[in-house]
């Protein structure tokens, strides 16, 4: 029988790192404060003591250096897992991500590959200072050569992280920090993977398909429950991987109802909801009974936290968005 532990999402991330490092000596983590401090969210707690400073590396404060060094390491066959302290600080490393991480393989016809997993806590809602609440997954999803994974449960977090670390392609692994400690789940102690590129249906429903991921999964499920009381039956699909999208799952869920809503906290314009809408109508226009609704963050810079509750989609806004799609 599989032993399990009751873990939060961030503990599951830590456990995923731990088990992958134990499995494979080539795996190492590097980043700011990941060592003795165990990460500002404790995602690497205890790893320094367990694996030592060569495999759990506190780096200087320089994101391009972190990502760029990880590129060099990965090209030489290691499996680096660089951490960027908050996804809002990935931008100083953006050139390395776009110009190198995403394209080393394509450029060299697979001769040089950089199978690194770039982790970052992401998203809003924790009353953080400026620049600490970004959700810009769309930037990475637009870069061919990258995979982009966003877990929404402890179980998935560990399994998707393991899959990412083992994946031959580089993965941007965004961890919704709003739910880092929001709830616990039984997580197997042993290593396992959850496949990249596969969405999962969190709730079955016949009236409308709601697509979401990350921290928005919970208010979406909440909205679905409320609507169920009104007799509106929502399917809720957690995408888990936002690049490449699980097109088959999206199309199937959509065609079952002809109505869809996409929920994400990233800004609307240019966000993934647009892409998902486009792919739905590309594949399934004839099934479409209503416009695909988008319940998203607004097209504004993420505000200081006194206003973040208005910025982020809430269960109420999601409900209204779903109702609109159903009543169209």
């Amino acid at each position, binding site marked *: 029988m599989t032993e399990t532990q009751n873990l939060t999402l961030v503990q599951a991330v830590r456990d995923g790192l731990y088990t992958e490092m134990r499995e494979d000596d080539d795996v190492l983590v590097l980043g700011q404060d990941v060592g003795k*401090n165990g990460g500002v969210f404790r995602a690497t707690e205890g790893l320094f003591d367990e694996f030592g400073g060569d495999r759990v590396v506190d780096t200087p*404060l320089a994101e391009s250096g972190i990502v760029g060094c990880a590129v060099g390491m990965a090209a030489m066959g290691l499996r680096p897992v660089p951490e960027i302290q908050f996804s809002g600080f990935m931008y*100083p490393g953006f050139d390395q991500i776009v110009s190198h991480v995403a394209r080393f393989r394509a450029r060299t016809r697979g001769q040089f590959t950089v199978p690194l997993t770039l982790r970052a806590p992401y998203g809003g809602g924790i009353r953080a200072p400026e620049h600490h609440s970004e959700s810009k997954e769309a930037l990475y999803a637009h870069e061919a050569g990258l995979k982009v994974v966003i877990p929404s449960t402890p179980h998935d977090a560990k399994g998707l992280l393991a899959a990412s670390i083992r994946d031959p392609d580089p993965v941007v692994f965004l961890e919704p920090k709003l739910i880092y400690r929001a709830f616990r789940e039984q997580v197997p102690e042993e290593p396992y993977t959850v496949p990249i590129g596969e969405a999962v249906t969190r709730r079955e429903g016949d009236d409308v398909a709601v697509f979401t991921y990350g921290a928005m999964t919970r208010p979406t499920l909440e909205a679905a429950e409320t609507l169920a009381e009104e007799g509106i039956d929502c399917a809720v699909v957690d995408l888990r991987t936002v690049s490449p999208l699980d097109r088959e799952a999206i199309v199937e869920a959509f065609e079952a109802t002809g109505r869809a809503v996409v929920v994400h906290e990233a800004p609307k314009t240019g966000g993934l909801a647009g892409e998902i809408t486009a792919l739905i109508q590309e594949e399934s226009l004839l099934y479409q009974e209503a416009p695909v609704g988008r319940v998203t963050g607004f097209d504004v810079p993420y505000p*200081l936290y006194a206003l973040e509750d208005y910025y982020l989609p809430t269960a109420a806004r999601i409900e209204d968005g779903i109702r609109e799609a159903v009543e169209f």
Partner: protein
Amino acid sequence: MSVFDRPYDDPVRVLDEDGAVVGEVPDVDDETLVDIYRQMRLARHFDARAVSLQRQGRMGTYPPLSGQEGAQVGSAAALGDDDWIVPSYREHAAGFVRGRSLKRTLLYWMGHPDGNRVEDGVNVFPVAVPIASQVPHATGASWAASLRGTDEVFCCYFGDGATSEGDFHEGVNFAGVFDTPTVFFCNNNQWAISVPRARQTRSATLAQKAEAYGIDGVQVDGMDPLAVYRVTEAAVEKARDPEADRPRPTLIEAIQYRFGAHTTADDPTVYRDDDEVERWREKDPIPRLEAYLRSEGVLDEERVAEVESAVESRVADAIAAAESTARPEPRELFEHAYAEVPSELERQHEDLAAVRESRGDAAFLEE
């Protein structure tokens, strides 16, 4: 001889740890000295109150500055009236010296958008959270000043960790090339969260990084406000009115220590020893300057008590004012992204307003 002509590892000093004079005291009047003292006391008290507000859930994450008052106040006090500071997120004290209000500083850490506004006529750039990203701003702003022929000097603050970022390198390098009137003031507080100074870089001093840019670099005892004053004053003077061959920009490494946590979200006991903290506490800038000023007869028990109570009431008033500030209106979200609100954004605002209308604010705010 210029204060810059010294080995990089020989910090400028004025007072020793007991407040005894060991270097050239800057040529300022007593009121200025008392003011530096008062500002340090203000900052220290503000800091303690802010940390406690955070503990009580009345404020979000806050980065304390205790221990660093000497560097911040000493440098900011040495600037001219029209000069600017370009801070990181920890320079509340420098901001106060330059006229930034305590209330807005509190509001900022309370997540209120008004906290990011600067009082009219106060020459302080908005807080920069992404490490070192303000360095090129300071270069560009001071460059603009020199293109326009104004006399303004820009003092840019950043930490020891910031020196590892590309933006530090690019910003200071541009300053060297374009010979801008900029003072790059590094608050080397020994730690970048949990990463010690020695792990940031193998260079023996941060001051010597100036070599890479062909500008002057100098260390100063950052817990000696008078030494900081002196070296900043010299850097400002040179920026404003350079000698023939001397570059205008200067890199100052102010050696200091943060007594507290990196932010209220941080637990420093995980990564550093109490012993170390204790050793640095002996260099506390406040008793040092106080001892000197008492020995000079500039301060006495009574004036110290006066300062103390003035500082306490100022901070208390500011907290009261901040806490009674109205919550920002959600429409604020949409108003300032662009000079004019684009039609789609207007629509988004209407959507939000409609939900609030029908559901009330309870749909957004946890109790």
